[in-house]
């Protein structure tokens, strides 16, 4: 019997008022695979991640995450998703350790895991300083710890290495990289780097699917074309089905 896909989207649509942020997106991502989402600013990448994270409700179409329909069964997948966005989702006036303790308690996991993660990102010496005293890269390292604290099978990563220097990026690689063994959806503006870690590549333009193919079938030039003369986001919902199952 075939394993249940980690993500199944069919005609997924999400609007903000009149503006269509995601327009009839259809795709399937198998467990343990990596989907990399490319597209210019405003293409719908972050909206897609927030829908997958159950933070936004789809307005049309269906979405199954880890075998559960959302939003009907969102409660069942919360706690199995690790989300890393441009916002670290951490309190600036609390220390790294306090923030991670708070999230560990919310997820009902032991506090030992915190020390393990702080060691992994080499922050134990500063772990009791408030986050407002950290550099952006250090905050991002704590945010990575928060995202994987509960060992989620699905990681949603919005430009996860944006604030990290090469050494820090290497530190977090075992936690959020392909070697972590988790199913991953990540956004990227780096065609070569993104394709290198993708199993499946999705290109969005104005909320619509402009490209959906296995990473081996796509070259960096095709990704670059997504950014050429990017159209403004769609104003109304389209009727054509633009996505396709790979």
């Amino acid at each position, binding site marked *: 019997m075939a394993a249940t896909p980690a993500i199944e989207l069919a005609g997924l649509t999400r609007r903000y008022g009149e503006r269509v942020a995601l327009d009839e997106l259809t795709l399937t991502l198998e467990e343990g695979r990596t989907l990399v989402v490319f597209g210019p600013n405003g293409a719908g990448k972050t909206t897609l991640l927030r829908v997958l*994270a*159950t*933070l*936004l*409700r789809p307005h049309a179409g269906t979405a199954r995450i880890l075998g559960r329909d959302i939003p009907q069964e969102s*409660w069942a997948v*919360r*706690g199995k*998703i690790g*989300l890393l*966005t441009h*916002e*670290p*989702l*951490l*309190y*600036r*006036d*609390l220390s790294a350790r*306090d923030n991670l303790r*708070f*999230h560990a*308690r*919310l*997820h*009902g996991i032991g506090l030992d895991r915190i020390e393990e993660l702080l060691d992994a990102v080499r922050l134990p010496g500063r772990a009791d300083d*408030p986050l407002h005293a950290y550099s952006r890269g250090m905050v991002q390292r704590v945010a990575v710890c*928060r995202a994987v604290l509960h060992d989620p099978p699905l990681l949603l990563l919005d430009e996860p290495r944006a604030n990290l220097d090469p050494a820090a990026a290497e530190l977090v690689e075992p936690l959020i990289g392909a070697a972590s063994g988790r199913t991953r959806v990540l956004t990227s503006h780096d065609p070569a780097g993104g394709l290198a870690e993708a199993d499946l590549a999705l290109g969005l333009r104005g909320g619509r699917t402009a490209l959906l193919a296995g990473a081996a079938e796509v070259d960096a030039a095709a990704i670059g074309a997504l950014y050429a003369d990017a159209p403004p986001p769609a104003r109304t919902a389209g009727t054509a089905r633009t996505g396709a199952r790979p």
Partner: protein
Amino acid sequence: MSSGAAIAALLRKELLLERRVPQVIPGMALFSVVTYVVFRFGLDRTSVEGSLAAGVLWVTLLFAAMLGANRLYVTDHEEGGFDGFLLAPVDRTTLFVAKALAFGLFLVLVEIVAVPAFAVLLLGPGLGAAEVGRLAAVLALADVGIAVIGTLVGALAIQTRARDLILPLIALPMLVPVIISAAKATAPVLAASGAGGLPGRWIALLCLYDLVFGLLAYAVFDFLLED
């Protein structure tokens, strides 16, 4: 994860944030004391008693509470605390319970400063142990109602651009029954003619308000967190 553990985690975080960067309690307490000073000069009286004293006490505490309710969700809103919470496998109403408990505790701590300041700056009749006990009972009942409404409306207001305006515009009318009941119940305690007992029907009304709006807020809070 049990709701009790989630509430404890959220409450702990609220208190830790207020301890690390005190914002809500000092702001509310200072506002209360300054307002009593303003009343002293505005009324051109060195002492008040009875229903006037009760009115001054409760209006000041209510406006101070609005300040606190306005700050209740600011950190969560600005620093992604809502998203972090929503990603956890916990019932969303645990946030309401934890915030209401934290806000209720903040109100009590503010009153520990504000009520003695009121007694020193404005109150004519002295308060004996019995009067303090009765006053504390009314304060506790009113605090429950104020904490429930402040927590509920604060969650609604934080999602709007004009939250500083929206919160008092919605919360103050909703809290009119609390203020009327609390002031009516407090007036005999603050009367110069000697301390009176607590009027039972106003106390009953406060209890009823707390129960009805507590259940109502608990039931609808989940929907306020929907996108």
